[in-house]
């Protein structure tokens, strides 16, 4: 009998430490499915970032490196430059990437570093217990924005659209935003990951998939409510789809050739 769907080989069969309804587990699964499909398990290296996904080495059944908070793209640079034929995945959360590590991600992207960033955006700090993230929406509650994020009086700044921010940089070739709130978006996100990994293995330039993800615990919602919240609040602000695609495989823009 042919096995149509099973546990990915690259994903360790273990109960995760993630909370019920958390998006990390789905994202881990998508990454490992693509790695298995591409036959890259023994040539993959992931950086486990500071944050809830710090435990990545427990879950991914391939090599890993654990860098300092925010320095993930710098460490991934050092890894990928030395292991050009390996798949290097720079896994980052919104605090790691868009707050403490803003310099590192901008310059890695600008240099066109040939690893793939998986940017998990859940608009909140998870591991430290629900503080405001750079991607926290205006008005959204967090322990450090107790009356909601207030860019005005309280000077809390505005949520950062990372794909759009990076899209002006010459080194970026593929910037896409997916979500793991429903099966349709999960399938689309998997395709984005596949596109990015394939581009990396062709050595095309900086690739990143931003993934909108639920954090029911720190959003103080049930898992079903958090899916609803993501759809009603995050997706309208963070549009899904390919924000930039200048890969060799990109479809010609509509009207080209006319």
């Amino acid at each position, binding site marked *: 009998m042919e096995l149509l769907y099973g546990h990915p080989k690259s994903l360790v069969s273990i109960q995760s430490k993630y909370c019920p309804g958390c998006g990390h587990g789905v994202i881990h699964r998508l990454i490992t499915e693509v790695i298995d499909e591409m036959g890259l398990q023994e040539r993959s290296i992931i950086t486990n970032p500071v944050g809830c996904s710090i435990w990545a080495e427990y879950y991914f059944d391939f*090599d*890993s*490196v654990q860098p300092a908070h925010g320095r993930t793209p710098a460490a991934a640079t*050092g890894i990928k430059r030395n*292991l050009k034929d390996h798949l290097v995945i720079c896994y980052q959360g919104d605090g790691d990437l868009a707050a403490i590590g803003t310099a590192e991600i901008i310059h890695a992207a600008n240099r066109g570093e040939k690893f793939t960033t998986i940017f998990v955006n859940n608009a909140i700090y998870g591991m430290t217990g629900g503080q405001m993230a750079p991607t926290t929406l205006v008005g959204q509650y967090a322990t450090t924005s107790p009356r909601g994020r207030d860019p005005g009086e309280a000077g809390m700044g505005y949520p950062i659209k990372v794909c759009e921010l990076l899209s002006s940089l010459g080194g970026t070739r593929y910037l896409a935003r997916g979500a793991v709130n429903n099966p349709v978006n999960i399938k689309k996100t998997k395709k984005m990951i596949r596109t990015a990994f394939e581009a990396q293995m062709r050595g095309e330039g900086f690739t990143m998939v931003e993934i909108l993800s639920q954090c029911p615990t720190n959003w103080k919602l049930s898992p079903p409510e958090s899916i609803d919240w993501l759809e009603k609040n995050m997706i309208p602000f963070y549009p899904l789809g390919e924000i930039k695609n200048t890969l060799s495989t990109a479809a010609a823009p509509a009207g080209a050739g006319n």
Partner: protein
Amino acid sequence: MSKEIRLMKGNEAIGEAAIRAGCASYFGYPITPQNELTAYMAANMLPAGRIFIQAESEVSAINMVYGAAATGVRAMTSSSSPGISLKQEGISYLCGADLPAVVVNVARAGPGLGGITPAQGDYFQSTRGGGHGDYHTIVLAPKGVQEAADLTFEAFELSDKYKIPVLVLADGLIGQMMESVVLPDPVDMAALPRKPWAVGHQARDKRGVNHVSSMNLDPATLEKANLKREAHYDMVKKELCRYEEMQVEDADLVIVAYGTSARVSMSAVQAGRAKGLKIGLFRPITLWPFPYERIAALAEKEGRKFLSVEMSMGQMVEDVRLAVNGRAPVAHYGRTGGMIHNEEEVLAAAERMLNA
């Protein structure tokens, strides 16, 4: 076979020695007075097909070193004092993950932005770990261009051997001055031993999965790891202490000095001896591990005094005091702020102490 002798700036000699030691990845960020080193690496690493990146900051550069070192290659960064401060987090992670790496500090005067002229105010930072947590780096202190090249070359060997980052602590004088130097023969990079703990090439090496990490959230396990590292440090202390002595046998006063201060002190010792003064010089070459035992032995001689001469407000003097442990008088003399004492000043300080 006759060796090629070159006239080189210290910064360039350090760069060339690193290349010859098989440095595969160099990551740097401009800062005076080590800029020639970064430029030398750009000019010579890239044509050789090796990795050179001018990082966006010292912080990024040290973390690029972390990533590169995790793949098992020889990796290096260099900077000067304020930049080395920025690298401390990364150095702590390197130590926590037991990764080899070479960090060169062409030190300048502080604190803060301070100045760009030579100083030795980074002794505490270099020898006490520098960042957070229980760790040490090996610290090598050259006194001139030749030794800067030799110790940089050896730093890669020591770092790989002990899996401890090695800090080469030079200063702006050593980085900027030109001297003749005989360079070490290049190593065959392909023949360097493979590192079984490194990431990458899993299939080639037919091994299980490797994780490079400094994280350990279980206190009991972390304590065990730290104790194991401490035992490893004890072994390094036994094997690696290195120093040079000059006329200490009969000395009534032993000047203890490293790097540029030692160089100046050598002239002071010669001038003092010419005047009939019994002074000598003890020059630590490894600042960590510090040669406590040898200094303790020197302190056994009745009536002997110790003068720590440093381009700082007195930092190494604390180690000299620890070594002497009350058995002999210990004092400090030095200039700070990027001022360098001359031999007359050092000799005068020595005479004052002899007559005190």
